[in-house]
């Protein structure tokens, strides 16, 4: 967010300029994570930590956040900070419900996207055409959207059988898909409790069975987003608007148009996130169902360093934490302390051995030891902190990672055509 003060956010360049990690590095990290989860399971004996049930729930809880984050990605890559995601999601919940009720589940998807896009259009109008501060516009939009959805729900669902002012009747369901037969075979492996192998089976099972089509669409949209933004001329132009709109303008790029398109797409994606909540996560629209997920989506996007892969990881982390605390409560989260110990230890050793940073590495190792002791002397995380564990995690992760992040350079800046040369 460049429109706000830049203190503390100066990029401290790395001693050795590190660029994007190669693909295999990501793969190795994912493998290491699975391995660590297996260790945690074996040591703690808590099978639910990475069971297919937990992972499925994590995926379902992550999707709305991922949609919102993807929306944020589009908008911020084009240089428009979008804190209005929350409002666009709210519009999407209503749109999804309205569409499903009147045209079937597929119309629900269209309705959610359309309603979100309307929110995006308003945000674009305010920020791009009128040059309103992006955060101000987003906050205002959130207030309007909550009101509009609430009013429209009262007006259109209040009279329906099974509906009320704050809730729609049950919505027709989107189909679920999966690879036939895979579920049983993988369950068989998972229940064996084999080190590592069972974890892999659990992951595969979560990814191949009982997926809502909207989940599949969402995952596909990640691939599509990556392709469009990083591999097509249009995407290049969108990104250039977020990096340096003035430069783009001097090359004949219609900056306003690209910003508009990106912000409207952003709205549509956030709307789909809302639609996911009303149509898939449950099958009714309920007031205040979004409950801050738009903001979490924004945080996930920042966590993901304004890139689709990182954003997916961020949403996944949040979904995972939420699934764990909802399903297993404090005892499940307790097992995570061990995981955190291992991660911190790994980071600490890496810092000391590879980068020679004694202090940072040392701190990480010390914290790891503290967490380990905590894990050892307690046997549950107090239920009082479980409900906000995901938020606390987000905050901590951002606190640790923020300075390594790099947002689009002109993100949040107000751009006027013909000014700024």
């Amino acid at each position, binding site marked *: 967010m460049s429109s706000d003060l830049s203190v503390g956010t100066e990029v401290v360049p790395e001693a050795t300029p590190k660029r994007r990690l190669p693909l295999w590095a990501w793969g190795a990290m994912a493998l290491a994570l699975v391995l660590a989860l297996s260790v945690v399971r074996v040591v703690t004996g808590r099978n*639910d930590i990475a069971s297919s049930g937990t992972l499925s729930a994590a995926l*379902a809880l992550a999707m709305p956040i991922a949609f919102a984050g993807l929306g944020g990605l589009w908008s911020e890559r084009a240089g428009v900070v979008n804190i209005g995601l929350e409002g666009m999601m709210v519009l999407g919940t209503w749109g999804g419900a309205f569409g499903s009720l009147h045209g079937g589940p597929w119309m629900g998807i269209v309705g959610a996207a359309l309603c979100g896009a309307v929110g995006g259009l308003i945000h674009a109008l305010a920020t791009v055409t009128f040059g309103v501060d992006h955060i101000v516009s987003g906050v205002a939009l959130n207030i309007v959207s909550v009101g509009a959805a609430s009013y429209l729900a009262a007006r259109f669902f209040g009279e329906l059988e099974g509906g009320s002012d704050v*809730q729609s009747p049950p919505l027709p369901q989107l189909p679920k898909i999966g690879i036939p037969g895979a579920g049983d075979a993988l369950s068989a492996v998972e229940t064996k409790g084999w080190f590592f192998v069972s974890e892999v089976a659990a992951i595969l099972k979560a990814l191949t069975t009982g997926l809502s089509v909207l989940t599949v669409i969402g995952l596909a949209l990640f691939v599509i987003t990556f392709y469009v933004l990083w591999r097509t001329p249009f995407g290049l132009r969108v990104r250039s608007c977020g990096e340096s709109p003035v430069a783009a303008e001097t090359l004949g790029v219609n900056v306003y148009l690209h910003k508009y398109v990106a912000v409207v797409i952003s709205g549509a994606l956030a709307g789909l996130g809302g639609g996911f909540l009303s149509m898939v996560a*449950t099958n009714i629209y309920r007031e205040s169902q979004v409950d801050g997920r738009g903001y979490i989506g924004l945080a996930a996007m920042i966590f993901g360093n304004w890139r689709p892969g990182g954003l997916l990881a961020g949403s996944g982390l949040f979904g995972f934490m939420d699934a764990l605390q*909802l399903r297993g409560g404090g005892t499940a989260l307790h097992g995570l302390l061990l995981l955190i110990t291992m991660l911190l230890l790994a980071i600490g050793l890496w810092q000391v051995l590879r980068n020679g940073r004694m202090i940072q590495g040392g701190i990480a190792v010390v914290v790891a030891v503290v967490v380990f002791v905590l894990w050892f002397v307690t046997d549950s995380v107090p239920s009082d902190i479980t409900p906000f564990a995901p938020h606390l995690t987000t905050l901590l992760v951002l606190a640790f990672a923020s300075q390594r992040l790099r947002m689009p350079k002109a993100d949040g800046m107000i751009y006027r055509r013909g000014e700024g040369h």
Partner: protein
Amino acid sequence: GGSDSTGDSTSAEGGSGSDVKACLAYDVGGRGDQSFNDSAAKGLDKAKDELKVETAEVEASQGENDAAREDRLNQLIESGCTDIIAVGYIYAKAVGGAAKENSDIQFAIIDDASEDSAGENVAQLTFAEEQGSYLVGAAAALKSKSNKVGFIGGVDVPLINKFQAGFEAGAKAVNPDIEVSTKYLAEDGSGFADPAKGQTAAEGMYDNGADVVYHAAGGSGSGVFKAAKAAKKMAIGVDSDQALTAEEDVRDVILTSMVKNVDVAVFDHIKAVTEGDMQSGNIIFDLKAGGVDYSTTGGKVDDIKDKLDGYKQEIVDGKVTVPTK
């Protein structure tokens, strides 16, 4: 505030009827929540039909304070209401305040019996949720094969704690070794409005071996039923007979419901008022009074009905006192 508007109410229904105008003030959500508020609305509708009273309804908006609630009650008085029923303990202070200022108006509040709402002209309608929960707890334990059952509450507040306490006591009464896992969904009202959370929590319980889960989580409960359906296990409904009100495709997983007959309480109250009684003080709707009960729709508890009725009798007779915390 003026309250003399009997002239209006008779002209409205064009019939004989009574000169009582009965009005409901809901918490956020209002009519149509398929739970608590709906149950109250049902009582009002019945009164309208059978007692021919005139009615009105208003609902609260998100995040308001006691003054706003009290103002709402006063607006109702101004629009001619003579019997005002506040649905939910959230109205306690508002009812207390409004009742003091309008001694000629009958008030009632559901789920609160505290000093805050007490008054000469206030009926405090409360329920022995722990007793009903005790019965469904017993049902759960009787039906459980895994000896694991679960309880999901919307928010960790004393009212919902009563459900949990009764449920646990009932289950333990049947099987002292039974394992009862408990989860509260959120810190704020969202715990009653987020079926996705209910579903995830219930899935966790089923995956960990529970085979019956009881929810006291309002609108989030529909997620619990979905989870039960997917896991091919059972769930217990709350407030109304959810085997009748839940979505059709999940009704078959509902073992029973802890019915809390808010409609009965509302109707009875209005009836008493139309008959000229001013009600005041705490009126407890317990098992004995038919205020709470377990439901039998679906026939899933037919085989254990005798046992359940036995427990019921013990409570009614006072042989068993169900804990509330």
